[in-house]
């Protein structure tokens, strides 16, 4: 809850458009949830860590507590929000900037093979 509440303003105030890109967000988060659920199940089975039943909801899927599942979804979402917020504020490139002109580097360097790199550089330079 704490993580969701602190990152929600980023969506509304900065307009990072993370929640508004649900397909991309799901494709980024769900594989991570899968990998870390497996890690968690292994760690629980190997007794790497323990949960205090008195401070949990008690809802579990096999040996996996509900809280862990939520944690593995919420933390990646918050991470994406943070990266996008940094990008909105500082305009630093992260590597998915448009290859052809378009929004970021409108009309500049579309023909050159290194347009992507230049677009990214221009994006970052602003």
């Amino acid at each position: 809850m704490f993580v969701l509440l602190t990152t929600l303003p980023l969506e509304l105030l900065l307009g990072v458009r993370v929640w508004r890109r649900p397909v991309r967000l799901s494709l980024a988060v769900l594989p991570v949830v899968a990998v870390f659920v497996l890690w968690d199940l292994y760690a629980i089975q190997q007794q790497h860590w323990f949960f205090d039943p008195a401070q949990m909801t008690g809802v579990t899927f096999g040996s996996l507590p509900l809280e862990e599942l939520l944690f593995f979804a919420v933390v990646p979402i918050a991470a994406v929000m943070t990266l996008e917020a940094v990008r909105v504020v500082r305009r630093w490139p992260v590597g998915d900037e448009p290859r052809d002109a378009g929004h970021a580097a409108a009309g500049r360097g579309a023909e050159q093979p290194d347009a992507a790199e230049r677009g990214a550089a221009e994006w970052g330079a602003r």
Partner: protein
Amino acid sequence: MTYTQLALTGVVVVVVLDLLVLRVGLLRRVAFWVAYAIIVFFQLLTNGWLTGREIVTYNPDTALTSGDVVLLGDWRIAYAPVEDLMFGFAMIVLTLDLWVLWGRRGIGGGPYADGPWQRRRDAREARRAASRAAS
């Protein structure tokens, strides 16, 4: 494997994925490290809560810490074992690599933000450009 070994493996795997396999190269981007610094601060807060209140406890046989829950030291930072930082790093790099990878493939668009912040700045820059053109 112990938690320490798994956590180290996780870090190595995501570094190799980022730089050599997926070739997203986020680890070479300023934006990533600034975002990571912010994330780590909040990770220490939330993880500190979870471990400080002993909602989660760790087995000293599989981690570097000897088991006493201390604020700092004995391989703990903000009550949590250092392995948690590696675990979190692996999780964050994997997530953000996938996010950027799908963005590159054209899913969910590029670096566009359309909130009030962005609109105000676009308007400001348009005004500046217009006044430059006029002078």
